[in-house]
């Protein structure tokens, strides 16, 4: 596939992976490639010929280029791309290209946008024949049906008038003008893609009107140049896409279509025209490209999709497949016991890693009976006393026994009146009763720690009773339980005051900690022992228990130390209601971090603070849109994960998946790949469900759901099937290349680089995989913000060109337009080779929203990849007061919907960072962002511009005697730049008196909007109490303007004269000295302008040029230009390579990375 101007070859066997890539077209995007076998060699062990090289015709825009692909037959993984000839430029836009079959010459049939076709000799670049259609309109798409000769070729074009026209470019037309042979009407939008299936005589078209149409056209091309049936009919109109359909492919039994809604639909082509499967996995923005491999009986087909997000995904599709493999079918376990099932739990067998078929399922009914399912049968396990009727809670746990490899399963059952029973599932008659609860038991939670297991019962009035249970085998081979009562937790006073989640953190220094979640949405921290004395006491108590066991040999016993009965524990730290009123659903711990889920659609990643014992939320991760009911998060196990792996990444976030309910389905969601890993059509939010494998905390990539629906016990897998790791892979589709942003990228910011020394890759010899991926050297870390409202942290490896998505942050609710980063790396030497990087990132978006994050980037030695830990520092919205209003849906919000356009860091020396924001409502706003206090404050705003402010920039001036002045520059759509003295704000003194200053100077620079600013002071040092500042600006008018300002330090002068300095106004005198302009620097709006170093600037524009300019005192010199393929460059990040090489990309050896922005409106 082509990605921009770069062609990449991926090998699909044995593991899909990128092989090799090469840039083919310089300023054009690749729109298509067509291959043919170039040479063949015979296989060693067979008589068949095996192709070992292919000719690829690669085209995009008006350019076509020949690329040869060499394959090493002995090892399929080794491929090599060779470019020998320069590209061939045509007069017209290329829509389709086909090789003329059985032709040893390099002849290509080309269809072009003005409804013309030509026969091109690619080796010479000469057109041998040319023909246009009499219908001379513009085409949006075209398909050439080419057989042996040019004369037989048929062209089908999708016209600007929503029609399909069919004509013969090689026919005997007069004056190279051919008439339309067939015309297909029906689409109500333009046609984006056409596909033809020879063996059925079908034609398919995909359109702007969101439909795919299949036409019975008959035989096309071939000897004599058939034009198909005289009256072709429309077989089927397929409406299923939610947006425009960009691409369509036909296979004998299926229709594949892909569109702007990001889905690839597989239709039953021959039958009723139903959707058999939907392949989803691209980020917002849709699928642009689609390829379907010719099917072979044994292997099925490959489907490859290319998204607007820049991602390439691969899917395996069986031709006879009738159903979606992700969406599971449901099996009824045919519950046959008395009463209606209320609670269900999956119980694993005694052995480690139980298979699904060996699992048992426990169900508690409204009669208070517990039934067990195993081997296809239900049996009554435990009969509850009458108080368990009509209301009953049940929870099970698998306990690894001390001194034994086997496990024991315990079941706890609680009643409305506070009666609580615990029994081993293997010996239900050995039940013990735990009393001391008062009132209804809302929930039961098991927690295994070391050799003990804890049971928590949440009863009335926020009382959470706790027991520590010691489970052992006794001499008779049965399970014995010893119970110790622990002090109860008391939940904060609120409605719905019961516990929903708990996890115990063993901590030697501080005593054990419990992190809990409640139904009110609060996260709570409890400390088990208030002081040392209590801890010792507990240990004594436990020993007494064990001693008692040895002497009397009783099956069970319970001991409730009297002194604990009245002792209760209150939370040390409480994040009240963080998960919203629908409550917390789970809390788990992994490598030092805690992950909680709630029915607010959020996963919160948090930790217990290192100073005072309190909970700190690091960041919030949302699941997909509409998925509000989250149940659990599970750590995603990497494929090569081994037990006992290094814990060097303790405290850093792991990849996780989210379990929850989305509409009528139970879904396992991957928040990084943004795809559904599993979907069970269970009907929606269930109070009781259970998942196998049980309580591992790690998602193995497969599983089965058991749930209760309308009195039936249902399972997503047939219970006798031995689903296991080897049985099937659930992960649908491979991501050959990760998507970056769904829609356009609005801003880009480079954080810095990390170095990977060669020795850290020494153990790579062990890692399987035929393709050696180069990972040594530097990785550039980049943050991008997009129209899809997300921030993406990327690691770019310039040596290999590979891009890895490290993190996706989804807190913004509108398009992210500007992002700044504060790192202290640049204060060190550029050549320092650090393996980690820390940055404070501030991003701003539409809907007047600011977010601040601390990013820690490092190298994960186990996964051999960079990682990124995101800590959410603070967030701010200008209209927070409006969001908090009740009944706001009934009112009309009169305030403007402000977008933040640009941001600049004013100061970061004090404990708060000051940032200035350009706002669309005409204001310049100054905010202080405090990482310590985790707060963002608006300091002041000024509506001086009265127009949309487009850009801001700052400049810090060093005067004599250690004085420092800070200037802010802001520019608006009227082409004027205002200069502000922010010295006082930066020194922190004006925080108490937040009055905005008046501008010191206003400069007219452009005719229309100023899109980008770069400012720097002259380094020649302060000359008699002042200095020169250069302001360079790029405008919508295509102009590059350089204004020089003289700044006088009045304060210094006043002081030398001896005047007291308590004057309220600015201590700076500013004068515009000179202006230099380059009126037609670009033919289109200058969208980005960045300072490489003083005097050297880089501009980017919609005219697809990136220019390098050198500024002297008297002139602006054009130093270099780079033609890019990005039609809509908007953001630019530039940096200089430490080693300056001559003759690289631009003149001076800096590498430019640019990203596109799709933000124009028509």
């Amino acid at each position: 596939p082509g990605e921009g101007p770069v062609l990449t070859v991926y090998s699909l066997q044995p593991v899909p992976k990128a092989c090799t890539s090469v840039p083919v077209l310089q300023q054009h995007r690749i729109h298509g490639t067509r291959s043919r076998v170039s040479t063949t060699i015979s296989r060693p062990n067979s008589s068949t010929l095996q192709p070992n090289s292919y000719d690829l015709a690669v085209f995009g825009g008006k350019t076509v280029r020949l690329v040869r692909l060499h394959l090493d037959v002995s090892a399929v993984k080794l491929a090599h791309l060779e470019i020998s000839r320069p590209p061939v430029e045509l007069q017209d836009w290329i829509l389709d290209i086909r090789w003329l079959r059985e032709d040893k010459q390099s002849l290509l049939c080309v269809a072009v946008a003005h409804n013309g076709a030509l026969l091109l000799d690619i080796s010479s670049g000469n057109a041998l024949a040319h023909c246009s259609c009499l219908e001379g309109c513009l085409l949006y798409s075209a398909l050439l049906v080419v057989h042996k000769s040019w004369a037989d070729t048929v062209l089908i074009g999708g016209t600007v008038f929503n029609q399909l026209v069919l004509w013969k470019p090689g026919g005997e037309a007069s004056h190279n003008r051919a008439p339309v042979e067939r015309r297909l009407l029906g689409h109500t939008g333009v046609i984006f893609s056409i596909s033809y299936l020879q063996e059925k005589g079908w034609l398919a078209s995909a359109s702007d009107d969101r439909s795919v149409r299949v036409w019975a056209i008959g035989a096309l091309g071939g000897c004599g140049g058939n034009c198909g049936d005289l009256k072709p009919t429309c077989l089927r109109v397929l409406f299923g896409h939610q947006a425009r359909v960009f691409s369509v492919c036909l296979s004998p039994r299926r229709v594949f279509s892909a569109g702007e809604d990001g889905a690839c639909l597989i239709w039953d082509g021959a039958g009723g025209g139903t959707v058999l499967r939907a392949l989803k996995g691209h980020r917002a923005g849709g699928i642009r490209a689609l390829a379907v491999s010719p099917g072979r009986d044994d292997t099925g087909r490959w489907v490859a999709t290319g998204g607007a997000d820049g991602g390439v995904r691969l899917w395996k599709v069986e031709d006879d497949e009738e159903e979606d493999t992700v969406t599971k079918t449901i099996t009824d376990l045919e519950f046959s016991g008395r009463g209606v099932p209320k609670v269900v739990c999956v119980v694993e067998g005694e052995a480690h890693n139980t298979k699904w078929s060996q699992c048992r399922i426990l169900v508690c009914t409204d009669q208070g009976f517990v039934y067990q399912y195993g081997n296809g049968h239900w049996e009554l396990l435990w009969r509850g006393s009458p108080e368990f009727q009509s209301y009953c809670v049940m929870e099970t746990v698998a306990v690894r026994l001390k001194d034994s490899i086997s496990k024991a399963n315990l079941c706890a059952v609680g009643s409305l009146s506070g009666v609580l029973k615990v029994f081993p599932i293997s010996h239900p008659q050995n039940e013990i009763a735990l009393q001391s609860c008062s009132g209804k038991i809302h929930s039961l939670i098991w927690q295994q720690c070391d050799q003990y297991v804890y049971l928590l019962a949440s009863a009335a009035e926020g009382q959470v009773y706790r027991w520590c249970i010691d489970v052992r085998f006794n001499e008779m081979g049965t399970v014995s339980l010893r119970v110790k009562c622990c002090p109860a937790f008391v939940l904060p006073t609120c409605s719905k005051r019961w516990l929903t989640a708990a996890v115990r953190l063993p901590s030697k220094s501080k005593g054990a900690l419990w992190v809990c979640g409640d139904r009110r949405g609060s996260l709570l921290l409890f400390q088990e022992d208030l002081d040392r004395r209590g801890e010792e006491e507990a240990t004594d108590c436990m020993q007494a228990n064990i001693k008692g066991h040895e002497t009397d040999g009783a099956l069970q016993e319970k001991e409730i130390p009297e002194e604990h009965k009245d002792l209760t524990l209150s939370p040390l730290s409480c994040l009240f209601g963080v998960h919203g009123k629908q409550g917390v659903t789970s809390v788990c711990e992994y490598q030092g971090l805690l992950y909680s889920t709630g029915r607010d659609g959020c996963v919160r990643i948090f930790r217990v603070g290192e100073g005072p014992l309190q909970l700190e939320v690091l960041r919030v991760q949302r699941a997909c849109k509409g998925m509000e009911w989250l149940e659990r998060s599970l750590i995603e196990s990497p494929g090569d994960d081994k037990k006992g792996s290094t814990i060097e990444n303790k405290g850093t976030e792991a990849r996780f998946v989210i379990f929850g309910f989305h509409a009528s389905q139970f879904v396992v969601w991957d928040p990084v790949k943004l795809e559904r890993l599993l979907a069970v059509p269970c009907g929606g939010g269930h109070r009781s469900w259970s998942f196998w494998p049980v309580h591992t905390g790690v998602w193995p990539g497969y599983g089965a759901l058991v749930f209760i629906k309308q009195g039936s016990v249902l399972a997503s897998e047939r219970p006798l099937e031995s689903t296991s790791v080897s049985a099937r892979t659930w992960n649908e589709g491979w991501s050959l290349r990760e998507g970056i942003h769904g829609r356009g990228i609005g801003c880009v910011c480079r954080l810095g680089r990390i170095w990977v020394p060669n020795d850290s890759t020494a153990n790579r010899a062990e890692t399987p995989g035929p393709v050696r991926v180069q990972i040594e050297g530097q990785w550039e870390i980049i943050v991008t913000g997009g129209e899809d409202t997300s921030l993406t942290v990327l690691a770019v490896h310039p040596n290999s060109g590979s891009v890895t998505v490290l993190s996706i942050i989804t807190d913004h609710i509108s398009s992210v337009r500007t992002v700044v980063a504060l790192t202290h790396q640049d204060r060190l030497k550029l050549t320092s080779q650090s393996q980690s990087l820390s940055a404070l990132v501030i991003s701003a978006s539409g809907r007047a929203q600011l977010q601040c994050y601390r990013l820690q980037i490092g190298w994960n030695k186990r996964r051999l990849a960079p990682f990124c830990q995101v800590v959410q520092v603070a967030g701010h919205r200008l209209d927070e007061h409006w969001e908090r209003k009740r009944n706001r849906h009934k009112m009309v919000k009169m305030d403007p919907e402000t977008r933040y356009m640009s941001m600049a860091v004013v100061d970061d020396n004090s404990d708060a960072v000051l940032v200035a924001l350009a706002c669309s409502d005409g204001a310049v706003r100054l905010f202080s962002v405090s990482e310590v206090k985790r707060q963002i404050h608006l300091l002041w705003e000024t509506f001086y511009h009265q127009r949309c402010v487009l850009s801001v920039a700052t400049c810090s001036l060093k005067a004599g005697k250690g004085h420092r002045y800070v200037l802010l520059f802001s520019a608006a759509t009227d082409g004027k730049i205002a200069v502000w003295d922010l010295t006082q704000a930066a020194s922190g003194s004006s925080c108490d008196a937040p009055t905005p200053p008046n501008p010191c100077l206003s400069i007219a620079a452009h005719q229309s909007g100023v899109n980008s600013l770069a400012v720097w002071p002259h380094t020649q040092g302060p000359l008699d109490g002042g200095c020169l500042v250069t302001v360079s600006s790029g405008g919508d008018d295509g102009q590059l303007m350089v204004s020089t300002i003289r700044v006088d330090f009045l304060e210094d002068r006043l002081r030398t004269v001896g005047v007291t300095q308590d004057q309220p106004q600015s201590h700076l005198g500013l004068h515009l000295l000179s202006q230099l302009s380059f009126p037609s620097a670009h033919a289109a709006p200058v969208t980005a302008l960045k300072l490489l170093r003083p005097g050297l600037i880089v501009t980017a524009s919609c005219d697809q040029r990136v220019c390098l300019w050198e500024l002297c005192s008297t002139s602006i010199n054009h130093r270099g230009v780079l033609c890019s393929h990005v039609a809509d460059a908007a953001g630019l990040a530039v940096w200089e390579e430490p080693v300056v090489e001559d003759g690289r990309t631009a003149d001076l050896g800096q590498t430019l990375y640019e990203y596109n922005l799709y933000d124009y409106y028509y």
Partner: protein
Amino acid sequence: MGRSSKDKRDIYYRLAKEEGWRARSAFKLLQLDEEFSLFTGVNRAVDLCAAPGSWSQVLSRKLRGHGEKCEGGEEVKIVAVDLQAMAPLPGVTQIQGDITKVSTAEEIVRHFEGQPADLVVCDGAPDVTGLHDVDEYIQAQLLLAALNITTHVLKPGGTFVAKIFRGKDVTLLYSQLKIFFGGVTCAKPRSSRNSSIEAFVVCQNYHPPEGYVPNMSNPLLDHSYDVDFNQLEGPNRIIVPFLACGDLSAFDSDRTYPLQLDAGKEYQYTPPTQPPISPPYQQACHLRKNNLLSKEDSPSSLGPRQSGDQAQAD
């Protein structure tokens, strides 16, 4: 809230509704006129790709603002050409036709009783694909098609105004326009957003090259880069003067305004002057609204049968 949010997002959208224009683009032509006095002495005007008709509205109001006749006593004639039908406008003759056809040019001239036009305007934009290189190309082709038909109908010395996307090969378009016109300016009205690559070429003083014969049978192809004439890179590119037009005190199309624009006047929602006429996605939206789109979850539901679609042989 839903209705007013678009009013808030786009001040010119709101103003257009309040002033009775069919689209916000009316302000663009008005602001271009402020700068270039496009309508002075104009009796015969053509609006290409006219739907929904806002530029025709401007032409109508401006050219015949104070009665049917202008000073010269000549009758004002306005012709609007578009492929799709649009709601009728008083004083504007509509031609439903293709601008790449000679017959359309002939029909325009017929309406002017054999006289050439004084002014041709074109605010047409293609159906966007979302691929910006493709969209810019198609817009360029639309402009060239408009230029081609203009050469059939415009009087020497006449004016041509058209929408242009300032993209990669815009300099090629400039060089092509300069062959036909004495003065070519790239103008950006203040009502056109800063964030949009859209601009307008104002081509004045039409004088085709010696011996030029208008020809509709071949499309005008875009120029290619030439080492001497118009370079791909470097400073020797043809770049025409840029002019931002419209009063700076006018509303800013990029600014987000509160709904209450001035203290004395209560905000009131105004419905659109002209709702869109049958968009391509009409049927798909109707099916979605009635839950009739094919879905994988409901394999039993049959895809909608085709209705009213037909194929015909030519």
